[in-house]
């Protein structure tokens, strides 16, 4: 592979090095990405249109509801032309979790950082465990990894339907469609659903009625299935959303035949539901495409994604950075970067080399100094890499040209990429690297999945790579991801039975007293590559003298909700809104609801709690601002 923008070359043996003779190789003025439209051009265009058109509205949607956490979106909409000229995504919360982690015992990282997010606390526990394990040199025994995979499949079992039915679903419900797209309703009443045999709805109108918030059958069933999957989580974790049994080097779960059987029995009820879920989101997608081609542009973005990999091969994972290309590429979901549909790399170390985070438009001060010029293998990394990040939170007034959000701008090779459960399907489908198994097959252009029989017959289903992302393909992808995750759960459960049969049920690398004795005193780095319901999730840990000296989290919504970067490239939400046509009838401007933009944003499954408390460094505690006469002591 080669980088397009970063001045990093590879020698014949695959080793990476900085191109010689470049004085400041990572300066934002040195490696400049190709930008479609600069801020100045965009601004000039808006001014020109403003002058000639009275239908331009400047509106701030704050708060955007039916997303997790605090999100606002500012838009400039041209109602006459039906386009969004500008968009700014704002994360409106900062909590300072990593400030709180500074100086703590590394054993505390899992429990503290899990609290970063209550929608997906389990994934944070695990990412933190991975980061801690790499730093401390702890490889969990296979049974520990298998039990992790089971729990993490169950977490997706709750997370995906929560989004599809409680958060996104109402946007496609009768209540919304009849209000904002009344022209579609007569068509929906006549449109026969191809998936009727699975979900039971004869017409699209019937299906849309079932999506109505609170009263709809699909809404309520979705809620029930999130509960069932959470029961599976707490069998293994004690509680949810913050698991009590994820520990450095494995798990502390007491696994008995009852544990496995209860998990098994609940999982058995899910596959029927999974078939219904996929059929619903296939039908919604096909209906809207059929009704109006313009829906393909709602929330559209190219196939440019980043994925960290998810669910380990229990026999490959050894917690080392040195072998991460080996064990990382054997995950159930393949790590990778895809740019415009092309798979650029699947190697975790290369993904890591291209990773940077920028704060030009975020409520933080620039940091200076770089602790690390290379990764542990000697590959160059940027001073903007998360291991080097020292961010100073600085609340200030909002200014669209300057700082307007608590989220930062992560980029890969200085290009805008998006994260998502569907991104996981894309990298996995293209890479064809997942472990041999009976249920999931990557074909290079699709993923085939074999769903076991429940009350409904067994089925083989196939997810195809779409031409581009849009709100429908994201939601449909999430529905197929639900199935994939549950099949990983089943395969892992079978592996747990096998290990139990062999008597190989050691679940943690060390006992608590050994753990205490083995806290390294030298400087160590860890990187927890993991996945969330929304895709990519990484925790970065630096420890020294037995204490945490830097902790950074980058979440999928940090990536997706990112503001402009130093070159004016908008983040994925912003790009998606600006591509979205205004299809709803706005001949009366007071009737403008913003539904098309809301469908676009919600399809990413925004999850803001863990997006916005993430950056720190020593000295972040800004006591000097506390000089207001009314301030606390």
């Amino acid at each position, binding site marked *: 592979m080669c980088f397009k923008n970063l001045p990093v070359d590879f020698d014949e043996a695959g080793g990476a090095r900085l191109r010689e003779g470049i004085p400041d190789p990572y300066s934002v003025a040195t490696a400049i990405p190709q930008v479609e439209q600069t801020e100045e051009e965009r601004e000039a265009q808006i001014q020109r249109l403003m002058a000639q058109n009275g239908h331009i509205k400047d509106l701030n949607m*704050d708060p955007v*509801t039916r997303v997790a956490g605090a999100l606002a979106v500012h838009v400039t909409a041209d109602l006459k032309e039906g386009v969004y000229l500008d968009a700014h995504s704002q994360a409106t919360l900062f909590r*300072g979790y990593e400030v709180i982690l500074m100086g703590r015992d590394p054993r505390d990282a899992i429990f503290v950082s899990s609290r970063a997010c209550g929608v997906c606390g389990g994934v944070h526990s695990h990412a933190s465990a991975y980061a801690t394990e790499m730093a401390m040199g702890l490889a969990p025994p296979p049974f520990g990894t298998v039990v992790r995979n089971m729990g993490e499949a169950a977490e997706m079992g709750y997370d995906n339907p929560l989004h599809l039915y*409680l958060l996104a679903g109402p946007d496609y419900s009768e209540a919304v469609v009849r209000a904002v797209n009344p022209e579609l309703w007569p068509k929906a009443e006549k449109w026969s659903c191809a998936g009727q045999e699975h979900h039971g709805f004869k017409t699209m109108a019937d299906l849309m009625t079932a999506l109505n918030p609170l009263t709809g059958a699909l809404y309520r069933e979705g809620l029930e299935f999130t*509960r069932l999957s959470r029961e599976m989580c707490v069998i293994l974790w004690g*509680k949810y959303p913050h698991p009590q049994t994820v520990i450095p080097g494995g798990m*502390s779960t007491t696994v008995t035949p009852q544990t496995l059987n209860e998990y098994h029995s609940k999982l058995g009820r899910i596959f029927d539901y999974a078939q219904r879920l996929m059929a619903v989101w296939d039908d919604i997608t096909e209906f809207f495409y059929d009704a109006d081609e313009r829906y393909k542009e709602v929330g559209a973005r190219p196939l440019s994604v980043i994925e960290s990999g998810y669910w380990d091969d229990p026999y490959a994972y050894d917690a080392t950075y040195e072998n991460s290309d080996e064990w990382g590429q054997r995950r159930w979901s393949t790590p990778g970067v895809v740019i415009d549909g092309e798979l650029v790399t699947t190697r975790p170390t290369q993904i890591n080399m291209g990773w940077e985070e920028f704060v030009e438009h975020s409520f933080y001060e620039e940091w200076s100094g770089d602790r690390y010029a290379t990764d542990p293998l000697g590959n160059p990394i940027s001073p903007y890499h998360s291991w080097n990040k020292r961010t100073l939170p600085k609340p200030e007034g909002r200014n669209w040209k300057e700082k307007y959000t608590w989220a930062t701008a992560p980029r890969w090779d200085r290009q805008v990429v998006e994260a998502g459960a569907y991104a996981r399907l894309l990298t996995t489908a293209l890479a064809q690297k997942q472990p041999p198994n009976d249920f999931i097959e990557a074909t290079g252009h699709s993923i085939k999945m074999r769903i076991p029989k429940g009350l409904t017959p067994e089925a083989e289903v196939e997810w195809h790579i779409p031409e581009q992302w849009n709100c429908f393909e994201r939601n449909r992808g999430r529905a197929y991801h639900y199935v994939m995750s549950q099949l990983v759960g089943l395969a892992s459960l079978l592996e747990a039975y096998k290990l139990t049969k062999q008597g190989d049920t050691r679940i943690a690398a060390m006992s608590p007293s050994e753990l205490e004795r083995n806290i390294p005193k030298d400087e160590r780095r860890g990187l927890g590559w993991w996945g969330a319901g929304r895709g990519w999730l990484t925790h970065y840990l630096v420890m020294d003298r037995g204490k945490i000296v830097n902790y950074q989290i980058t979440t999928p919504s940090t990536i997706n909700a990112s503001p402009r970067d130093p070159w004016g490239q908008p983040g994925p939400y912003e790009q998606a809104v600006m591509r979205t046509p205004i299809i709803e009838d706005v001949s009366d401007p007071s009737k403008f609801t913003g539904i098309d933009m*809301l469908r676009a944003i919600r399809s990413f499954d925004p999850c803001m709690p863990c997006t916005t408390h993430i950056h720190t460094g020593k000295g972040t505690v800004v006591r000097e601002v506390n000089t*207001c006469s*009314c301030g606390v002591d």
Partner: protein
Amino acid sequence: MATSVAQKTPAQRLLDVLGPVDRWHDHEEIGDFGMPTRAFMEDMVEPLAKAGLGSRLGPLEKVHAFWFAGMSCDGCSVAVTGAQAPSVESLLMGAHPGLPRVVLHHPVLNVESGPNYLRAHENALKGELGAPYVIILEGSISDETMAMAGTERDNYGYWSAQGEEPWGRNGENRIVSTDEWIARLAPNAAASIAIGTCATWGGIPSADGNPTGAMSLMDFLGKDYRSVFGVPVVNVPGCPPIGDNFNETVAAILYFLQGFGPLPEFDELGRPAWLFGETVHRHCVRGAYYEEGTYAETFGDPECLVEIGCWGPVVNCNITSRGAINHVGGCMNSGGACIGCTMPGFPDKFTPFYKRPPGSLVSTAAARLLGSFVKPLRRYTSAHLNREVRWDLHNEVPSGWAREQSEPSMVQGRGTSSTT
């Protein structure tokens, strides 16, 4: 009554800076923006949720609930969606017999966004809601005066915000912090309820290093706070809380207000006494191991977890009896040591985690001593009870599963599977 500056609560100090408000969004101008159903959630649900006179068991027909996610992770919201006693959908649909329907204003659940989502909040401030309201806070309160310091008056910096209102000096929109909403709404609320350890006791955002001045709802509103019904802040802690603990507390208050339920009992910290009056250890499924002096040595072991960092004997929590969701799970039930997440001292009085609580040294040693007497006696009796009377008479056990076991004595016999 004059109050000196020193006695002012953080909420009063914030409002002193921000001043009173009397301007509201022009909803004609905003139109349907952010409201894709062209109707408020409340009005959409009302036809199905409103009870007829025949099924009203008390004076209240509906209660508004304003849910604020302050410096939160949304985990409490997630926990509440898991509740079953009663479920959130039954409360919202008026489907829990005798209770008023709850008109919930929740950023994760509502259909309307933006200024239209905030309309009911404005009505509550104006006193035009037409029904009592409660406020619910999930997540810590931040010290917004810290974030505001040094920034422009009508474009303040903030830590945690929800929406904009035309509260700038010249009627321009400015960002409204979650704290400001709470400071303004709490005095006229029927109840102010803190859910989860961040809102009840500050939680992780207020832990050592706390850069945002994070604090609890009680800290923010102060000791003298009373709702219009005369109630101090109600606290349902846990990180996350058990969803049923919260919904049950809300229901218990409503049962009382409707006239058929007893006055719910709260402890001296405002916790529902029937839920937090016991330690987690008293109902622990592994508790009897403690009594016998048998402790887990490593992760995954089935015995009492106190020597690998469990604080259960001193933590007020009911998760071992109630489970986490639908009576499934529970920390120790599945192998997790208690880290005290329901407690005001969480997290700093419990870290580093996985280290045995220092206070347990004496008690576990004492329990070991006692256990060395109790355990053999119990084994003896258990073995006796594991034999039919007939087997005793014939002096044989016709089980193909193990060698025949003689009547154990205090000297020999380890359980029922060994004779030698």
